[in-house]
């Protein structure tokens, strides 16, 4: 099972370039796709999900070009788009039955699987309620269920935890970890902790190009001895932010504890263990400064 993205460029009307010569090879596991707004993540997901086509380059699924024969991939694809709708007059089970029919799934097996998926996403009790009355988080869980409907080999999820409460978010993370064994999972999100909890690989993307592709451990190694905790007064914080790259701040009784990223620590700063958010911000700042990852 292999997904190869080869030199993909996507150009929209009016000359907007969302992806530029993007290449990536994927094997079973969870790929966390991280990047700032407008980096090209959703465009990449749409191309991989066969919703849109690359302007240049190609995407190969097990050696076959998905633009030429998309159905080979579609039959094993689960896709949860960032923005999707539901039919308000159907209930959750009926909506999943409808999509099972669209995907060409066998009736008896899909009926069993729908029951199991509704249980899995904690919607069994709400299965008979019209989707029009569902909250945003409940609709999102229906979206997760439909993405898993056909037991996909390639699962693409775009901002899957948006709108979920903390408990459901943790539940979904666990589910992704469970699923990752024998399939490729691509998880795009702004929530670094979601990636930290589930991803076996991370791809950083900015301005349509691949900034870094590495394991979480390798990314963390890049910022080893580059993260510092520095206590400053509230009054000095603004100036500190202008001088240093600060990933987070916490107010305490002795002042503001700032996490500073950089090769040279401020005077009085202590080294601390880096986390993935530090690594993400550091890589992006290096990319902006033109330093290769």
């Amino acid at each position: 099972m292999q997904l190869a993205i080869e030199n993909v460029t996507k150009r929209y009307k009016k000359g907007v370039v969302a992806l530029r010569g993007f290449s990536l090879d994927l094997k079973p596991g969870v790929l966390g796709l991280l990047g700032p707004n407008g980096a090209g993540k959703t465009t990449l997901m749409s191309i991989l999900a066969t919703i849109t086509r690359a302007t240049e380059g190609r995407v190969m699924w097990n050696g076959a070009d998905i633009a030429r024969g998309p159905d080979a991939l579609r039959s094993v694809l689960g896709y949860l788009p960032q923005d999707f709708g539901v039919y308000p007059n159907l209930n959750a089970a009926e909506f999943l039955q409808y999509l099972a029919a669209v995907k060409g799934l066998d009736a008896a097996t899909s009926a069993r699987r729908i029951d199991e998926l509704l249980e899995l996403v904690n919607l069994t009790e709400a299965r008979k309620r019209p989707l029009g009355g569902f909250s945003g988080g409940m609709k999102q869980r229906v979206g997760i269920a439909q993405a898993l409907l056909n037991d996909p080999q390639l699962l693409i999820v775009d901002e899957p935890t948006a709108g979920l409460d903390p408990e459901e978010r943790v539940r979904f993370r666990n589910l992704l970890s469970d699923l990752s064994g024998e399939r490729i999972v691509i998880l795009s999100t702004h929530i670094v902790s979601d990636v930290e909890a589930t991803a076996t690989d991370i791809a950083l993307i900015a301005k349509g190009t691949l900034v870094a592709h590495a394991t979480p451990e390798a990314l963390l190694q890049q910022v080893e001895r580059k993260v510092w905790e520095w206590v400053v007064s509230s009054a000095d914080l603004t100036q500190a932010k202008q001088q240093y790259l600060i990933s987070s701040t916490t107010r305490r009784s002795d002042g503001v504890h700032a996490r500073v990223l950089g090769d040279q620590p401020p005077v009085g700063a202590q080294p601390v263990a880096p986390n993935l958010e530090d690594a993400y911000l550091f890589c992006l700042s290096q990319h902006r400064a033109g330093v290769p990852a």
Partner: protein
Amino acid sequence: MNGPRALYHMVRADFLERVRRYSFLLTLGFAVYLGYAVYAGQVTLRLDKYSGIVNSAWLGAVLGLVSTVWLTLIGFYIVKNAIQRDRQTRVGQILATTPMSKSFYTLSKMLSNFAVLASMVLILALAAVVIQLLHGEDAHIDLFALLSPILILGLSAAAVCAAIAVLFESLPILRGGIGNVVYFFLWMFMLSMSVTAMVPSHPVSWLHGLGDYTGIAAVMGQMHAAVLKIDPHYTGASSFGIGPMNAGATKFLWTGVRWSAGILAARLMWVGVAVALALLAAVFFDRFDPARGGWRSEQKEKPSKKPLAGELALPQAAETGLREPARASAAHLTTFTRTGPQMRFFALVVAELRLMLRGHGWWWYAGAAGLFIGCVASSLDDARSGFIAAAWLWPILVWSQMGTRESQFSTGALIFSAPGAVPRQLLATYAAGVLVAMLTGGGLALHLLFTGDFAALGAWAAGAFFIPALALGLGATTGTRKAFEAIYTMWWYVGPLHHIPQADFMGTTAASSTPLRFLLFAVVLVVLAYSWRTVRVRYA
């Protein structure tokens, strides 16, 4: 809040949002087409055997009638989406949190609608000048005589149409497809009020002008009087419509509309009516309150007696302290033996049919059943020329979903990422639409089978295949339900109801029945829908 400035920016923003969409080009294209139709002699005005010499006054009158009659019909369907757009883009939720009053909002939407319609009127005014230069029998351009009917009639009628659109959007029951059908009949009624206001031998009185929404009576009454001067035997017969009716007409000189104070006051009164309607709309406007989202959703959203597990997750956690959320496990999920999509086509048709028929109240099914029984129990003539027309108008809102549902509910990404989804889902939708036609019109089919009238049965079958094809073709290409709801209602009125052979897709009489033509149309429309969707999905 600075009222005039805020109003200006509300109207401006809404107008710019509209004119920067490709669909606005189609709107202007339609106005240009109307101008061309007059130029090419496809839209004609005739008073018995008389037609005017093509001078500024005559062209102005004809284009004035075009603007007031056709723009008030088609224009309504073009502009009836101002509030819907704010709802869909969720801009409405932001506006609802501002100090803006409801009446201010509906008035601004009415003015924005008016601006769109006015731009079409202005296109017609420009076309009038071009037509006279190219085609006029009298080359002298009298700008007042040429433009005054277009601007005075067109703009006042546009104001009313703009306001009615806002009122319909504010009323939950008229917001959707029902409103699109109802407006056609309202338009017919208001047009008939204008025609009734015409008194052939007299100029239109102030009192008659009150019922003359379109201003037709103001123009036609004076034309009747002018013809009476040259032909005392003139009966008052007149026709205005599509077709080369001016061939062989006797020409007379029309010098233009005399804009009396009464006529102008009547036009102003209708502008006042427009403002009043916009303000009335504010009474019904829900200010984007989701709890007042619609008359049908209110009926359905019954509060659940038992709280749902997902909704209680956080309070439970708070009560019991921190705990590990239930571990979701995919290990026990049933795995698939993959099945070819073709094996599930029938299941997909059933799913599409269920989707189409879901969400209607009991009264809808009762009405469909009543019409079915009417087709079976009435005389064959009544069933064929009357009941079937009603039975096949009844499901208009079911058919109008076809080809539009994926864009309306943003489910395209879920559906079109499935294998072979475009042809399978499209054909399944079409098959479900045909089944709806066969079920609702099935009473007539049974009647025809019993009587052995197989020619009429063929016409019935052609109708059953044609109507869903029209819905699918228009839905897939326009992405909106309105196109089918408006065009089908008009076609239904002109064709089956009046038994016009070229347009009677139901074959309501033996003389007007042309089943092969409509079967061919059905094939063309389905192919069009398939091609359009394939291109849209491929090059999204």
